[in-house]
Protein backbone atom coordinates (compact mmCIF):
# COMPACT_ATOMS: atom_id res chain seq x y z
CA UNK A 1 0.00 0.00 0.00
CA UNK A 2 2.32 2.60 -1.29
CA UNK A 3 1.24 6.14 -2.06
CA UNK A 4 2.56 9.18 -3.81
CA UNK A 5 3.70 12.26 -1.88
CA UNK A 6 2.84 15.76 -3.01
CA UNK A 7 4.12 19.02 -1.61
CA UNK A 8 2.29 22.04 -2.98
CA UNK A 9 3.68 25.58 -2.71
CA UNK A 10 5.11 25.04 0.76
CA UNK A 11 6.45 28.08 2.58
CA UNK A 12 7.85 27.68 6.09
CA UNK A 13 9.37 29.92 8.74
CA UNK A 14 11.46 29.44 11.85
CA UNK A 15 10.22 32.35 13.90
CA UNK A 16 10.50 35.18 11.41
CA UNK A 17 13.19 33.56 9.25
CA UNK A 18 11.90 32.10 6.01
CA UNK A 19 13.42 28.65 5.53
CA UNK A 20 11.38 27.30 2.64
CA UNK A 21 9.92 29.32 -0.17
CA UNK A 22 7.10 28.14 -2.40
CA UNK A 23 8.44 24.61 -2.63
CA UNK A 24 6.59 22.05 -4.72
CA UNK A 25 7.55 18.43 -5.13
CA UNK A 26 5.84 15.29 -6.33
CA UNK A 27 7.14 11.82 -5.59
CA UNK A 28 5.43 9.06 -7.53
CA UNK A 29 4.36 5.76 -6.01
CA UNK A 30 7.35 3.56 -5.29
CA UNK A 31 9.82 6.25 -6.26
CA UNK A 32 12.85 7.24 -4.17
CA UNK A 33 13.64 10.95 -4.31
CA UNK A 34 16.60 12.51 -2.53
CA UNK A 35 16.88 16.05 -1.25
CA UNK A 36 20.51 17.01 -1.65
CA UNK A 37 22.20 20.15 -0.39
CA UNK A 38 24.53 21.59 2.21
CA UNK A 39 23.34 22.39 5.74
CA UNK A 40 20.77 25.14 5.91
CA UNK A 41 19.41 24.49 2.41
CA UNK A 42 16.02 23.42 3.79
CA UNK A 43 16.22 19.70 3.10
CA UNK A 44 15.75 18.60 6.71
CA UNK A 45 13.06 21.24 7.22
CA UNK A 46 11.16 19.72 4.29
CA UNK A 47 11.41 16.28 5.85
CA UNK A 48 10.29 17.55 9.25
CA UNK A 49 7.32 19.29 7.63
CA UNK A 50 6.24 16.05 5.99
CA UNK A 51 6.77 14.18 9.26
CA UNK A 52 4.60 16.68 11.09
CA UNK A 53 7.22 18.04 13.49
CA UNK A 54 6.83 21.46 11.91
CA UNK A 55 3.88 23.24 10.40
CA UNK A 56 4.16 25.10 7.10
CA UNK A 57 3.16 28.75 6.95
CA UNK A 58 1.27 28.03 3.77
CA UNK A 59 0.90 25.26 1.23
CA UNK A 60 -0.32 21.69 1.39
CA UNK A 61 1.17 18.23 1.90
CA UNK A 62 -0.68 15.22 0.56
CA UNK A 63 0.03 11.51 0.84
CA UNK A 64 -2.04 9.78 -1.83
CA UNK A 65 -5.43 11.41 -1.43
CA UNK A 66 -4.92 12.19 2.27
CA UNK A 67 -4.21 15.79 3.29
CA UNK A 68 -1.46 15.69 5.93
CA UNK A 69 -0.93 19.42 6.30
CA UNK A 70 -2.59 19.89 9.71
CA UNK A 71 -2.48 16.28 10.89
CA UNK A 72 -0.52 15.63 14.12
CA UNK A 73 2.73 13.72 13.62
CA UNK A 74 1.48 10.58 15.31
CA UNK A 75 -1.45 10.20 12.89
CA UNK A 76 0.58 10.47 9.69
CA UNK A 77 1.71 6.87 9.33
CA UNK A 78 5.17 7.58 7.93
CA UNK A 79 8.24 5.43 8.55
CA UNK A 80 11.11 7.68 9.54
CA UNK A 81 14.79 6.81 9.97
CA UNK A 82 16.66 9.42 12.01
CA UNK A 83 20.23 10.57 11.60
CA UNK A 84 20.83 9.73 15.27
CA UNK A 85 18.72 6.55 14.84
CA UNK A 86 16.74 7.72 17.92
CA UNK A 87 16.44 4.17 19.25
CA UNK A 88 14.74 3.99 22.63
CA UNK A 89 17.60 3.18 25.01
CA UNK A 90 15.36 1.51 27.60
CA UNK A 91 13.85 -0.98 25.11
CA UNK A 92 15.36 -4.08 23.56
CA UNK A 93 15.81 -4.43 19.82
CA UNK A 94 12.56 -6.42 19.72
CA UNK A 95 10.61 -3.79 21.66
CA UNK A 96 12.09 -0.97 19.61
CA UNK A 97 10.96 -2.65 16.40
CA UNK A 98 7.58 -3.50 17.91
CA UNK A 99 6.96 0.04 19.21
CA UNK A 100 5.00 1.22 16.17
CA UNK A 101 2.85 -1.91 16.06
CA UNK A 102 2.09 -1.50 19.75
CA UNK A 103 0.83 2.03 19.08
CA UNK A 104 -1.41 0.60 16.36
CA UNK A 105 -2.84 -1.80 18.93
CA UNK A 106 -1.48 -4.76 16.99
CA UNK A 107 -0.67 -7.25 19.69
CA UNK A 108 -0.06 -10.86 20.48
CA UNK A 109 0.96 -13.34 17.87
CA UNK A 110 0.77 -10.99 14.92
CA UNK A 111 3.08 -8.45 16.49
CA UNK A 112 5.57 -11.14 17.46
CA UNK A 113 5.48 -12.60 13.98
CA UNK A 114 5.92 -9.30 12.15
CA UNK A 115 8.65 -8.09 14.50
CA UNK A 116 10.61 -11.33 14.32
CA UNK A 117 10.25 -11.45 10.57
CA UNK A 118 11.52 -7.89 10.19
CA UNK A 119 14.43 -8.43 12.60
CA UNK A 120 15.33 -11.50 10.58
CA UNK A 121 15.12 -9.52 7.35
CA UNK A 122 17.64 -6.94 8.51
CA UNK A 123 19.88 -9.72 9.76
CA UNK A 124 19.66 -9.08 13.51
CA UNK A 125 17.97 -12.32 14.55
CA UNK A 126 20.64 -13.14 17.11
CA UNK A 127 20.52 -9.72 18.77
CA UNK A 128 16.78 -9.31 19.31
CA UNK A 129 17.02 -9.15 23.11
CA UNK A 130 19.89 -6.67 23.31
CA UNK A 131 19.58 -3.03 24.21
CA UNK A 132 20.74 -0.39 21.72
CA UNK A 133 23.71 0.50 23.93
CA UNK A 134 25.13 -2.95 23.20
CA UNK A 135 24.96 -2.68 19.42
CA UNK A 136 27.44 -1.36 16.87
CA UNK A 137 26.63 1.64 14.69
CA UNK A 138 25.68 -0.50 11.73
CA UNK A 139 23.45 -2.71 13.86
CA UNK A 140 21.69 0.33 15.33
CA UNK A 141 21.11 1.57 11.83
CA UNK A 142 19.47 -1.74 10.94
CA UNK A 143 17.20 -1.57 13.99
CA UNK A 144 16.16 1.95 13.01
CA UNK A 145 15.41 0.70 9.51
CA UNK A 146 13.45 -2.31 10.79
CA UNK A 147 11.48 -0.10 13.18
CA UNK A 148 10.42 2.19 10.33
CA UNK A 149 9.66 -0.65 7.90
CA UNK A 150 7.69 -2.95 10.18
CA UNK A 151 4.71 -0.59 10.37
CA UNK A 152 4.43 -1.03 6.61
CA UNK A 153 4.15 2.71 5.98
CA UNK A 154 2.98 4.16 2.66
CA UNK A 155 5.96 6.52 2.83
CA UNK A 156 9.49 6.05 4.13
CA UNK A 157 11.72 8.97 5.02
CA UNK A 158 15.42 9.00 5.76
CA UNK A 159 17.19 11.91 7.48
CA UNK A 160 20.90 11.54 6.64
CA UNK A 161 20.70 7.96 7.85
CA UNK A 162 24.28 7.01 7.00
CA UNK A 163 26.23 10.02 8.19
CA UNK A 164 27.28 8.34 11.44
CA UNK A 165 28.74 5.24 9.78
CA UNK A 166 32.22 4.66 8.43
CA UNK A 167 32.82 4.77 4.68
CA UNK A 168 32.71 1.02 3.98
CA UNK A 169 29.55 0.42 5.97
CA UNK A 170 27.91 3.43 4.31
CA UNK A 171 28.12 1.79 0.90
CA UNK A 172 26.77 -1.53 2.23
CA UNK A 173 23.90 0.15 4.04
CA UNK A 174 22.78 2.27 1.14
CA UNK A 175 22.55 -0.83 -1.03
CA UNK A 176 20.57 -2.45 1.78
CA UNK A 177 18.22 0.54 2.06
CA UNK A 178 17.63 0.58 -1.68
CA UNK A 179 17.00 -3.18 -1.70
CA UNK A 180 14.44 -3.04 1.12
CA UNK A 181 12.74 0.03 -0.36
CA UNK A 182 12.41 -1.54 -3.78
CA UNK A 183 11.30 -4.90 -2.39
CA UNK A 184 8.34 -3.21 -0.71
CA UNK A 185 7.86 -0.71 -3.52
CA UNK A 186 7.51 1.97 -0.86
CA UNK A 187 7.62 5.64 -1.83
CA UNK A 188 10.65 7.24 -0.16
CA UNK A 189 12.06 10.64 0.62
CA UNK A 190 15.78 10.64 1.38
CA UNK A 191 17.72 13.59 2.80
CA UNK A 192 21.49 13.77 2.48
CA UNK A 193 24.39 16.13 1.89
CA UNK A 194 26.45 13.42 0.20
CA UNK A 195 26.24 13.64 -3.58
CA UNK A 196 27.51 10.15 -4.27
CA UNK A 197 25.01 8.68 -1.81
CA UNK A 198 22.10 10.59 -3.31
CA UNK A 199 23.01 9.77 -6.90
CA UNK A 200 23.63 6.10 -6.26
CA UNK A 201 20.40 5.41 -4.41
CA UNK A 202 17.78 7.67 -5.98
CA UNK A 203 15.38 7.59 -8.89
CA UNK A 204 15.46 11.37 -8.86
CA UNK A 205 17.41 13.95 -6.89
CA UNK A 206 16.38 17.46 -5.90
CA UNK A 207 19.36 19.75 -5.40
CA UNK A 208 18.40 22.44 -2.88
CA UNK A 209 19.75 25.83 -1.93
CA UNK A 210 18.33 28.55 0.31
CA UNK A 211 14.95 26.87 0.74
CA UNK A 212 14.35 26.24 -2.96
CA UNK A 213 14.83 23.32 -5.31
CA UNK A 214 17.46 24.35 -7.87
CA UNK A 215 16.95 21.30 -10.09
CA UNK A 216 15.00 18.07 -9.79
CA UNK A 217 15.90 15.29 -12.16
CA UNK A 218 17.46 11.87 -12.56
CA UNK A 219 21.07 11.56 -11.40
CA UNK A 220 22.20 11.05 -14.99
CA UNK A 221 20.69 14.31 -16.20
CA UNK A 222 21.92 16.25 -13.16
CA UNK A 223 25.40 14.91 -13.68
CA UNK A 224 25.70 15.68 -17.38
CA UNK A 225 23.25 18.52 -17.99
CA UNK A 226 22.94 20.77 -14.94
CA UNK A 227 20.38 23.51 -15.40
CA UNK A 228 22.24 26.32 -13.68
CA UNK A 229 25.59 27.38 -12.31
CA UNK A 230 24.79 26.27 -8.76
CA UNK A 231 23.94 22.72 -9.77
CA UNK A 232 26.89 22.64 -12.20
CA UNK A 233 29.27 23.63 -9.43
CA UNK A 234 27.65 21.06 -7.13
CA UNK A 235 28.24 18.19 -9.57
CA UNK A 236 31.86 19.10 -10.24
CA UNK A 237 31.95 21.59 -13.07
CA UNK A 238 34.77 23.47 -11.33
CA UNK A 239 35.54 25.79 -14.23
CA UNK A 240 33.04 28.40 -15.35
CA UNK A 241 33.84 30.99 -17.92
CA UNK A 242 31.51 33.78 -19.15
CA UNK A 243 31.10 33.72 -22.93
CA UNK A 244 29.31 35.68 -25.61
CA UNK A 245 28.34 34.47 -29.09
CA UNK A 246 30.16 36.30 -31.89
CA UNK A 247 29.04 34.20 -34.82
CA UNK A 248 26.43 31.51 -35.36
CA UNK A 249 26.87 29.89 -38.75
CA UNK A 250 26.15 26.42 -40.13
CA UNK A 251 27.34 23.54 -37.98
CA UNK A 252 28.96 25.50 -35.17
CA UNK A 253 28.87 28.52 -32.95
CA UNK A 254 31.90 30.68 -32.21
CA UNK A 255 32.07 32.32 -28.79
CA UNK A 256 34.49 34.69 -27.16
CA UNK A 257 35.54 35.04 -23.53
CA UNK A 258 36.85 38.12 -21.71
CA UNK A 259 40.35 38.76 -22.96
CA UNK A 260 39.45 37.79 -26.52
CA UNK A 261 40.13 34.05 -26.73
CA UNK A 262 37.62 32.22 -28.90
CA UNK A 263 36.27 28.70 -28.99
CA UNK A 264 34.24 26.91 -31.60
CA UNK A 265 31.31 24.82 -30.31
CA UNK A 266 29.83 22.21 -32.70
CA UNK A 267 26.02 22.36 -32.63
CA UNK A 268 25.84 18.59 -32.69
CA UNK A 269 27.27 18.51 -29.20
CA UNK A 270 26.31 21.82 -27.58
CA UNK A 271 23.07 23.73 -27.32
CA UNK A 272 23.86 27.40 -26.84
CA UNK A 273 21.33 28.83 -24.35
CA UNK A 274 21.58 32.48 -25.49
CA UNK A 275 23.68 35.34 -26.73
CA UNK A 276 25.52 35.34 -23.46
CA UNK A 277 26.16 32.12 -21.59
CA UNK A 278 28.48 30.31 -19.21
CA UNK A 279 30.88 27.68 -20.44
CA UNK A 280 31.29 25.11 -17.66
CA UNK A 281 33.84 22.29 -17.64
CA UNK A 282 35.14 19.69 -15.24
CA UNK A 283 38.96 19.54 -15.10
CA UNK A 284 38.62 16.40 -17.23
CA UNK A 285 36.64 18.45 -19.74
CA UNK A 286 39.64 20.64 -20.61
CA UNK A 287 42.45 18.54 -22.05
CA UNK A 288 45.88 20.14 -21.77
CA UNK A 289 47.56 19.85 -25.16
CA UNK A 290 51.01 21.05 -26.22
CA UNK A 291 50.38 20.05 -29.88
CA UNK A 292 50.88 23.07 -32.17
CA UNK A 293 47.62 22.80 -34.13
CA UNK A 294 45.22 22.09 -31.24
CA UNK A 295 41.97 24.10 -31.20
CA UNK A 296 40.75 25.52 -27.91
CA UNK A 297 41.55 28.03 -25.20
CA UNK A 298 45.15 29.29 -25.06
CA UNK A 299 46.65 28.99 -21.58
CA UNK A 300 49.86 29.24 -19.59
CA UNK A 301 50.47 26.36 -17.16
CA UNK A 302 50.97 26.94 -13.47
CA UNK A 303 51.31 24.37 -10.69
CA UNK A 304 51.12 20.68 -11.59
CA UNK A 305 49.63 18.09 -9.20
CA UNK A 306 49.32 14.35 -9.58
CA UNK A 307 45.77 13.01 -9.14
CA UNK A 308 46.26 9.37 -10.07
CA UNK A 309 44.59 9.03 -13.44
CA UNK A 310 46.04 12.29 -14.78
CA UNK A 311 48.07 15.38 -13.97
CA UNK A 312 46.07 18.41 -12.97
CA UNK A 313 47.32 21.89 -13.83
CA UNK A 314 46.27 25.31 -12.72
CA UNK A 315 46.11 27.31 -15.95
CA UNK A 316 45.99 31.01 -16.67
CA UNK A 317 43.67 31.80 -19.57
CA UNK A 318 42.54 35.17 -20.92
CA UNK A 319 39.21 34.54 -19.20
CA UNK A 320 40.74 33.73 -15.80
CA UNK A 321 42.25 30.85 -13.87
CA UNK A 322 40.98 27.29 -14.52
CA UNK A 323 41.89 23.71 -13.60
CA UNK A 324 42.58 21.30 -16.44
CA UNK A 325 43.93 17.76 -16.75
CA UNK A 326 46.71 16.44 -18.96
CA UNK A 327 47.83 12.90 -19.78
CA UNK A 328 50.25 11.03 -17.53
CA UNK A 329 52.34 10.17 -20.57
CA UNK A 330 53.40 13.77 -21.15
CA UNK A 331 54.05 15.79 -17.98
CA UNK A 332 54.47 19.49 -18.78
CA UNK A 333 56.43 22.09 -16.86
CA UNK A 334 55.17 25.26 -15.27
CA UNK A 335 55.22 28.21 -17.66
CA UNK A 336 54.57 26.19 -20.81
CA UNK A 337 52.14 27.69 -23.33
CA UNK A 338 49.43 25.17 -24.21
CA UNK A 339 45.92 24.82 -25.59
CA UNK A 340 42.98 23.59 -23.49
CA UNK A 341 40.85 21.43 -25.77
CA UNK A 342 37.19 21.12 -24.64
CA UNK A 343 35.90 17.55 -24.25
CA UNK A 344 32.16 17.88 -24.93
CA UNK A 345 30.95 15.06 -22.61
CA UNK A 346 32.58 16.79 -19.59
CA UNK A 347 31.44 20.28 -20.53
CA UNK A 348 28.12 22.06 -20.60
CA UNK A 349 26.67 25.43 -21.43
CA UNK A 350 24.58 27.31 -18.89
CA UNK A 351 22.40 30.38 -19.22
CA UNK A 352 24.15 33.56 -18.09
CA UNK A 353 23.12 34.73 -14.58
Amino acid at each position, binding site marked *: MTQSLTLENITAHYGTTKVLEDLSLHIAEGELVSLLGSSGCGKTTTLRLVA*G*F*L*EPTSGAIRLGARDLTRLP*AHSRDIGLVFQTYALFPHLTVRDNVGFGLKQRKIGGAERTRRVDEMIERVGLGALADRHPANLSGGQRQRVALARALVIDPPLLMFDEPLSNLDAKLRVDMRVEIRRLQQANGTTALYVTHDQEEAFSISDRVAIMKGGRIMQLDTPEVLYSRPANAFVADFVGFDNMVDMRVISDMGESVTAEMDGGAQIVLPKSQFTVPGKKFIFAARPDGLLVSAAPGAEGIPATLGLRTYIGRAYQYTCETPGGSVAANGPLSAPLESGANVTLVPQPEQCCLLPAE
Partner: protein
Amino acid sequence: MKHRIHPLLIAATVVTFLFLLGPLVVIIGAALSDTSFLTFPPQGLTLRWFSNIFEISAFTRTMGTSFMLAVGGTTLSMLIGIPAAYAMARYRVELPAFLGNVFVLPILIPEIVLGFSLMKSLAAGIGLPIMAALLIGHALLVLPYTVRVVGASLNSFDFSIEEAAVSLGCPRLKAFFIVVLPNIRAGIIAGFILAFITSLNDVSISIFLTGPGVSTLPIQLLAHMEQFFDPTIASVSVLLMGVTVAVMAVVERTLGLTFLTK
Protein backbone atom coordinates in the same frame (compact mmCIF):
# COMPACT_ATOMS: atom_id res chain seq x y z
CA MET B 1 5.58 26.07 16.79
CA LYS B 2 4.77 22.49 17.84
CA HIS B 3 5.06 20.66 21.16
CA ARG B 4 2.63 22.91 22.99
CA ILE B 5 2.45 22.51 26.74
CA HIS B 6 -0.90 21.93 28.39
CA PRO B 7 -2.15 25.14 30.05
CA LEU B 8 -2.81 23.26 33.29
CA LEU B 9 0.87 22.30 33.50
CA ILE B 10 1.85 25.92 32.92
CA ALA B 11 -0.54 27.02 35.65
CA ALA B 12 0.97 24.44 38.02
CA THR B 13 4.44 25.72 37.19
CA VAL B 14 3.43 29.30 37.92
CA VAL B 15 2.07 28.19 41.28
CA THR B 16 5.31 26.32 42.03
CA PHE B 17 7.44 29.36 41.39
CA LEU B 18 5.13 31.55 43.48
CA PHE B 19 5.58 28.96 46.22
CA LEU B 20 9.37 29.06 45.77
CA LEU B 21 9.80 32.82 45.68
CA GLY B 22 6.83 34.05 47.75
CA PRO B 23 8.31 33.22 51.16
CA LEU B 24 11.51 35.07 50.27
CA VAL B 25 9.47 38.13 49.29
CA VAL B 26 7.69 37.84 52.64
CA ILE B 27 11.05 38.04 54.42
CA ILE B 28 12.08 41.12 52.47
CA GLY B 29 8.75 42.75 53.29
CA ALA B 30 9.07 41.88 56.95
CA ALA B 31 12.58 43.33 57.05
CA LEU B 32 11.33 46.66 55.74
CA SER B 33 8.23 46.92 57.93
CA ASP B 34 8.14 49.80 60.37
CA THR B 35 6.77 47.65 63.17
CA SER B 36 8.54 45.93 66.01
CA PHE B 37 6.98 42.60 65.16
CA LEU B 38 7.22 40.50 62.02
CA THR B 39 4.48 41.33 59.56
CA PHE B 40 3.61 41.24 55.90
CA PRO B 41 2.72 43.24 53.88
CA PRO B 42 5.02 45.81 55.51
CA GLN B 43 3.33 48.65 57.41
CA GLY B 44 5.41 51.72 56.66
CA LEU B 45 8.90 51.34 55.25
CA THR B 46 12.10 51.61 57.23
CA LEU B 47 15.70 50.54 57.06
CA ARG B 48 16.17 50.67 60.82
CA TRP B 49 16.12 46.88 61.19
CA PHE B 50 19.17 46.75 58.98
CA SER B 51 21.05 49.21 61.14
CA ASN B 52 19.80 47.30 64.15
CA ILE B 53 21.82 44.29 62.99
CA PHE B 54 24.97 46.18 63.86
CA GLU B 55 23.64 47.09 67.31
CA ILE B 56 23.49 43.43 68.23
CA SER B 57 27.07 42.34 68.83
CA ALA B 58 26.15 38.64 68.64
CA PHE B 59 25.28 39.16 64.99
CA THR B 60 28.32 41.19 64.02
CA ARG B 61 30.65 38.80 65.82
CA THR B 62 29.17 35.64 64.32
CA MET B 63 29.07 37.26 60.88
CA GLY B 64 32.82 37.67 61.08
CA THR B 65 33.29 34.13 62.33
CA SER B 66 31.07 32.68 59.61
CA PHE B 67 32.86 34.61 56.90
CA MET B 68 36.32 33.61 58.12
CA LEU B 69 35.21 30.04 58.54
CA ALA B 70 33.72 29.86 55.06
CA VAL B 71 36.83 31.35 53.47
CA GLY B 72 39.18 29.24 55.59
CA GLY B 73 37.30 25.95 55.24
CA THR B 74 36.83 26.40 51.52
CA THR B 75 40.46 27.36 50.97
CA LEU B 76 41.61 24.34 52.92
CA SER B 77 39.34 22.02 50.94
CA MET B 78 40.50 23.65 47.68
CA LEU B 79 44.16 23.17 48.58
CA ILE B 80 43.67 19.46 49.03
CA GLY B 81 40.72 19.04 46.67
CA ILE B 82 42.30 20.46 43.51
CA PRO B 83 45.28 18.06 43.53
CA ALA B 84 42.88 15.19 44.25
CA ALA B 85 40.53 16.17 41.42
CA TYR B 86 43.54 16.62 39.12
CA ALA B 87 44.91 13.19 39.94
CA MET B 88 41.49 11.57 39.56
CA ALA B 89 41.12 13.03 36.07
CA ARG B 90 44.75 12.67 34.97
CA TYR B 91 45.70 9.30 36.42
CA ARG B 92 42.49 7.39 35.87
CA VAL B 93 44.36 4.15 35.24
CA GLU B 94 46.75 4.39 38.16
CA LEU B 95 44.16 5.10 40.86
CA PRO B 96 41.49 2.70 42.11
CA ALA B 97 37.94 3.65 41.11
CA PHE B 98 36.61 3.62 44.69
CA LEU B 99 38.62 6.77 45.50
CA GLY B 100 35.97 8.78 43.71
CA ASN B 101 33.46 7.53 46.24
CA VAL B 102 35.72 8.41 49.16
CA PHE B 103 35.40 12.11 48.35
CA VAL B 104 31.62 11.82 48.18
CA LEU B 105 31.42 10.23 51.63
CA PRO B 106 30.86 13.55 53.37
CA ILE B 107 27.60 13.78 51.36
CA LEU B 108 26.62 10.18 52.05
CA ILE B 109 27.14 10.38 55.80
CA PRO B 110 24.38 12.57 57.23
CA GLU B 111 25.82 15.96 58.12
CA ILE B 112 24.34 15.87 61.57
CA VAL B 113 26.00 12.52 62.28
CA LEU B 114 29.29 13.95 61.09
CA GLY B 115 28.80 17.00 63.30
CA PHE B 116 28.04 14.87 66.32
CA SER B 117 30.97 12.52 65.67
CA LEU B 118 33.41 15.41 65.20
CA MET B 119 32.21 16.98 68.42
CA LYS B 120 32.71 13.72 70.27
CA SER B 121 36.15 12.95 68.82
CA LEU B 122 37.73 16.35 68.19
CA ALA B 123 36.22 18.79 70.64
CA ALA B 124 35.51 16.49 73.56
CA GLY B 125 37.96 13.70 72.69
CA ILE B 126 41.25 15.42 71.95
CA GLY B 127 40.25 18.86 73.08
CA LEU B 128 40.78 20.65 69.77
CA PRO B 129 39.99 24.38 69.96
CA ILE B 130 36.48 25.22 68.70
CA MET B 131 37.70 27.17 65.71
CA ALA B 132 40.03 24.39 64.57
CA ALA B 133 37.29 21.78 64.87
CA LEU B 134 34.90 24.02 62.94
CA LEU B 135 37.50 24.55 60.24
CA ILE B 136 38.04 20.82 59.78
CA GLY B 137 34.29 20.16 59.84
CA HIS B 138 33.61 22.77 57.20
CA ALA B 139 36.52 21.66 54.99
CA LEU B 140 35.06 18.13 55.09
CA LEU B 141 31.57 19.44 54.43
CA VAL B 142 32.55 21.26 51.24
CA LEU B 143 35.18 18.80 49.97
CA PRO B 144 32.67 16.94 47.76
CA TYR B 145 31.69 20.22 46.09
CA THR B 146 35.23 21.33 45.39
CA VAL B 147 36.32 17.93 44.09
CA ARG B 148 33.22 17.53 41.96
CA VAL B 149 33.07 21.00 40.41
CA VAL B 150 36.81 21.22 39.77
CA GLY B 151 36.71 17.62 38.55
CA ALA B 152 33.96 18.48 36.08
CA SER B 153 36.07 21.16 34.45
CA LEU B 154 39.13 18.88 34.51
CA ASN B 155 37.16 16.18 32.72
CA SER B 156 36.71 18.50 29.78
CA PHE B 157 40.36 19.56 29.93
CA ASP B 158 42.58 18.20 27.19
CA PHE B 159 45.65 16.87 28.96
CA SER B 160 47.64 16.79 25.74
CA ILE B 161 47.95 20.56 26.21
CA GLU B 162 49.88 19.91 29.39
CA GLU B 163 52.02 17.36 27.59
CA ALA B 164 52.65 19.90 24.86
CA ALA B 165 53.93 22.37 27.47
CA VAL B 166 56.20 19.73 28.98
CA SER B 167 57.50 18.72 25.53
CA LEU B 168 58.34 22.37 24.93
CA GLY B 169 60.61 22.30 27.96
CA CYS B 170 58.29 23.46 30.75
CA PRO B 171 58.82 21.62 34.05
CA ARG B 172 55.80 19.56 35.16
CA LEU B 173 54.97 21.58 38.26
CA LYS B 174 55.23 24.84 36.37
CA ALA B 175 53.09 23.40 33.58
CA PHE B 176 50.38 22.68 36.13
CA PHE B 177 50.39 26.29 37.28
CA ILE B 178 50.71 28.05 33.94
CA VAL B 179 48.78 25.65 31.68
CA VAL B 180 46.34 23.53 33.68
CA LEU B 181 45.20 26.01 36.34
CA PRO B 182 44.31 28.86 33.96
CA ASN B 183 42.22 26.47 31.89
CA ILE B 184 40.16 25.21 34.82
CA ARG B 185 39.82 28.65 36.39
CA ALA B 186 36.06 28.73 35.83
CA GLY B 187 35.62 25.46 37.69
CA ILE B 188 37.82 26.60 40.55
CA ILE B 189 35.99 29.88 40.98
CA ALA B 190 32.57 28.24 40.76
CA GLY B 191 33.65 25.44 43.09
CA PHE B 192 35.02 27.94 45.58
CA ILE B 193 31.91 30.05 45.59
CA LEU B 194 29.50 27.10 45.86
CA ALA B 195 31.57 25.67 48.68
CA PHE B 196 31.66 29.10 50.31
CA ILE B 197 27.87 29.46 50.36
CA THR B 198 27.44 25.88 51.58
CA SER B 199 29.78 26.54 54.46
CA LEU B 200 28.22 29.92 55.20
CA ASN B 201 24.74 28.38 55.47
CA ASP B 202 25.72 25.28 57.39
CA VAL B 203 23.74 24.38 60.49
CA SER B 204 24.00 20.64 61.07
CA ILE B 205 27.76 20.48 61.62
CA SER B 206 28.23 23.84 63.27
CA ILE B 207 25.46 23.27 65.79
CA PHE B 208 27.63 20.64 67.48
CA LEU B 209 30.99 22.35 67.15
CA THR B 210 30.16 25.89 68.19
CA GLY B 211 30.71 26.46 71.84
CA PRO B 212 31.21 29.10 74.47
CA GLY B 213 32.18 32.36 72.82
CA VAL B 214 32.41 31.02 69.28
CA SER B 215 29.32 30.72 67.11
CA THR B 216 28.38 31.07 63.47
CA LEU B 217 25.72 33.30 62.00
CA PRO B 218 23.15 30.59 61.16
CA ILE B 219 23.48 29.11 64.65
CA GLN B 220 23.13 32.56 66.20
CA LEU B 221 20.07 33.22 64.03
CA LEU B 222 18.55 29.93 65.08
CA ALA B 223 19.06 30.76 68.73
CA HIS B 224 17.73 34.29 68.25
CA MET B 225 14.60 33.01 66.48
CA GLU B 226 13.73 30.76 69.37
CA GLN B 227 13.91 33.65 71.85
CA PHE B 228 13.02 36.85 70.03
CA PHE B 229 10.81 37.45 67.10
CA ASP B 230 11.74 40.84 65.73
CA PRO B 231 12.39 42.09 62.22
CA THR B 232 16.16 42.13 62.76
CA ILE B 233 16.16 38.43 61.92
CA ALA B 234 14.40 39.25 58.68
CA SER B 235 16.95 41.90 57.82
CA VAL B 236 19.85 39.51 58.49
CA SER B 237 18.07 37.01 56.26
CA VAL B 238 17.84 39.64 53.53
CA LEU B 239 21.59 40.27 53.88
CA LEU B 240 22.20 36.54 53.46
CA MET B 241 19.95 36.52 50.40
CA GLY B 242 22.13 39.30 49.04
CA VAL B 243 25.15 37.03 49.45
CA THR B 244 23.24 34.34 47.53
CA VAL B 245 22.62 36.78 44.68
CA ALA B 246 26.33 37.60 44.55
CA VAL B 247 27.20 33.89 44.57
CA MET B 248 24.78 33.22 41.72
CA ALA B 249 26.22 36.07 39.69
CA VAL B 250 29.70 34.57 40.06
CA VAL B 251 28.54 31.06 39.14
CA GLU B 252 26.64 32.42 36.14
CA ARG B 253 29.76 34.28 34.95
CA THR B 254 31.98 31.23 35.32
CA LEU B 255 30.29 27.92 34.65
CA GLY B 256 26.78 29.18 33.97
CA LEU B 257 23.92 28.33 36.31
CA THR B 258 22.71 25.56 34.02
CA PHE B 259 25.77 23.71 35.28
CA LEU B 260 23.70 23.02 38.39
CA THR B 261 21.22 20.95 36.42
CA LYS B 262 23.93 18.50 35.42
